[in-house]
């Protein structure tokens, strides 16, 4: 593990040292050399209890940062035009999970440049274009964490291997349609016969006068799976030690959502002053056969889940160096388990213990305050307050987030 850490540090140091330089030429970020950017992210986190979402089977990356000092994702992005027909980009995140350093390939995709007629095809591994936040990189989010609904639905964000087609209408109004076919095996999908992940999205947007812009979107995702094993399930930690596992078999998941963004820059200069309001709603229906094993005991049941939730946030940049924001999010589970066979386990007791039977809403309020010495550096203080039923918890996070290397253009 130590070696792993050292290797990571050496790798970071190499990129830290290589200041970019490029020849004179057209805007390409970096002429023939690819644009390289590195995000360095670290936190100091303070909280009492571990993360849990009653009523939800959690995907990967749902937890809280480690208490005290820790690193977030150190993300390396390399991108360039491959030739006159393709653009390629890859994002590699180095992160700490349960004490070991892991390298995650978040994105590695190619995109067509020369198809024309508003059509673009993207293929490889990419962040899905469903929703609004999903295809933005974590470092461009206004809060250190994903909204609750993203954590619950996608285990943070949805990315997968596959192909995407988009078409932009030739109108003054921005109108874009897209479809994705992917492996469908990343959360909330699971192992399947092949390419069961399907997504559809539509986006529409425009300006209102000189200084206001907006975008609305609608999206849907579905996948079928033979098997999905969940990382943790409610109070599952102790049970895991006894070899307890919950698997969903022969299942199907359907997600639909809508999103809205509204931005106002009083002088037309978003960097100086800007108010951004955004909200997203998702609902998920899934059914499967649930199999639970603990030592020699087990049960099998029919499972049906109906989950929904939303978040709304407002972020105000009041000077080039300062930004503040508030966010409210709410999620609501409803799971039905119908016992098919049982072997030494009382299912009702199980549901109560793991809180999988919970239908209680979880609400979270967040506030953040941010100092940006330049557009490439940021120090953020965030406070989360979460409440469900009689329970509540609090999280404080102090975070730095810096970007080295080429100017990354941020999408809207």
């Amino acid at each position, binding site marked *: 593990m130590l070696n792993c850490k050292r290797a990571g540090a050496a790798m970071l140091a190499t990129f830290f040292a290589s200041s970019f330089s490029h020849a*004179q030429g*057209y*805007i390409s970020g970096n002429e023939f050399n690819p644009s390289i950017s590195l995000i360095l992210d670290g936190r100091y986190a303070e909280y009492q209890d571990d993360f849990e979402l009653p009523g939800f089977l959690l995907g990967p990356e749902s937890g809280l940062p480690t208490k005290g000092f820790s690193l977030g994702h150190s993300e390396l992005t390399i991108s360039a035009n491959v030739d006159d027909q393709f653009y390629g980009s890859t994002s590699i995140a180095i992160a700490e999970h349960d004490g070991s350093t892991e390298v995650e390939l978040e994105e590695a995709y190619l995109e067509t440049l020369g*198809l*024309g007629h508003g059509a673009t095809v993207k293929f490889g591994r990419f962040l899905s274009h469903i929703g609004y936040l999903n295809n933005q990189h974590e470092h461009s989010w206004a809060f250190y964490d994903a909204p609750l609904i993203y954590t619950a639905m996608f285990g943070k964000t949805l990315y997968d291997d596959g192909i995407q087609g988009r078409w932009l209408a*030739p109108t003054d109004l921005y109108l*874009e349609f897209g479809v994705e076919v992917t492996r469908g095996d990343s959360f909330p999908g699971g192992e399947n016969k092949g390419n069961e992940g399907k997504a559809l999205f539509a986006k*529409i947007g425009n300006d209102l006068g000189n200084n206001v*812009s907006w975008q609305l979107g609608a999206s849907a995702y579905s996948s079928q799976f033979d098997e999905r094993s969940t990382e943790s399930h409610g109070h599952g930690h102790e049970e895991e030690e006894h070899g307890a596992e919950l698997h969903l078999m022969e299942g199907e998941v359907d997600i639909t959502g809508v999103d809205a963004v509204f931005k106002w820059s009083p002088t037309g*200069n978003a960097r100086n002053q800007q108010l951004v309001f955004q909200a997203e709603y998702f609902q998920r229906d899934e059914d499967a056969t649930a199999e639970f094993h603990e030592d020699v005991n087990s049960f099998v049941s029919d499972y049906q889940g109906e989950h929904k939730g939303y978040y709304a946030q407002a972020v105000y940049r009041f000077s080039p160096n300062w930004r503040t924001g508030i966010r409210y999010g709410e999620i609501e589970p409803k799971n039905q388990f119908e016992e098919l066979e049982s072997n030494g386990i009382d299912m009702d007791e199980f549901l109560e213990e793991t809180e999988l039977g919970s239908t209680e809403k979880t609400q979270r309020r967040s506030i953040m305050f941010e100092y940006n010495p330049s557009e490439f550096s940021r120090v953020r203080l965030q406070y989360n307050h979460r409440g469900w039923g009689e329970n509540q918890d609090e999280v404080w996070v102090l975070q730095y987030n810096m970007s080295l290397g080429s100017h990354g253009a941020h999408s809207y």
Partner: protein
Amino acid sequence: MRFYLLFSLLLLPGICWGKVHVFACEPEWASLTEQLAGDHATIFTATHAQQDPHHIEARPSLIAQMRKADMVVCTGADLEVGWLPLLIRRSGNAKVQTNKPGYFEAAMEVERLDIPESVDRSQGDVHSAGNPHVHLDPNRITTIAAALSKRLAAIDPDNQSAYIEQLKTFQAKWNEHVSKWQLKAKPLRGMKIVTHHKDWVYLNHWLGLQELATIEPKPGIPPSAKDQKRLLTELSANKPDAIVLAPYQNAKAANWLSQKLDAGIIKLPYTVGGDGQSQDLFNLFDRTIDLLLSAQRAIK
């Protein structure tokens, strides 16, 4: 059948009725294209004079306009690096990709000043291709006009002779104005100015203005209170005649410095639309020189 009807209705606005759709990043290039293409082009201007062209969001409306464009006319030299490449990539428009004739970067047609020997973020937002704010030198505009006209003719060969004709008309009128401006601006030679950002380099070079300092400690970095004090000390010994500000720049630091140094602020239009009088490239320069001259007279 009904579907096809609907579909073709959607496509209608994209079919240009013989006109070249131009996506101009900044108002100065929209104005130049208008001079050179006249009725043969419809021009969309992506930014207005109150906006800082370094920092524009790749908004949905801009993506939609890029989708429809036959040609992109921008400053280039990395000025729009934070938004233009993204717009082009998102547009799904083959005509405006960087290797196509539909992609035109004005700054790359002329010699640029301030090309740094090395580039490092600690120096601020420097452009490795040199200072991109080339439009404030009318002689460079002459060169750019010729290149742009040639490009328009390549994209719209049916109207080639019209573009050649328009270029001739423009150049005759432009050259006449340039001589007039140079004569009129002679007294400005040696005038000492302080600017907010390094976006007046080409104007200074052309008119012989002497730039003592910039308010930004480094390009693109807003000045801190400490930076301002340091600048004040530095300038107390060598007072500027005026402090020059573009419409998109924050006047706070300039106002403070102006009071302390007892030097006036000149708000120059910087680009077309920068004030009420600067409605095209010709009166942009008329106005700029008039404002500088009247500021100079006020001192004497």
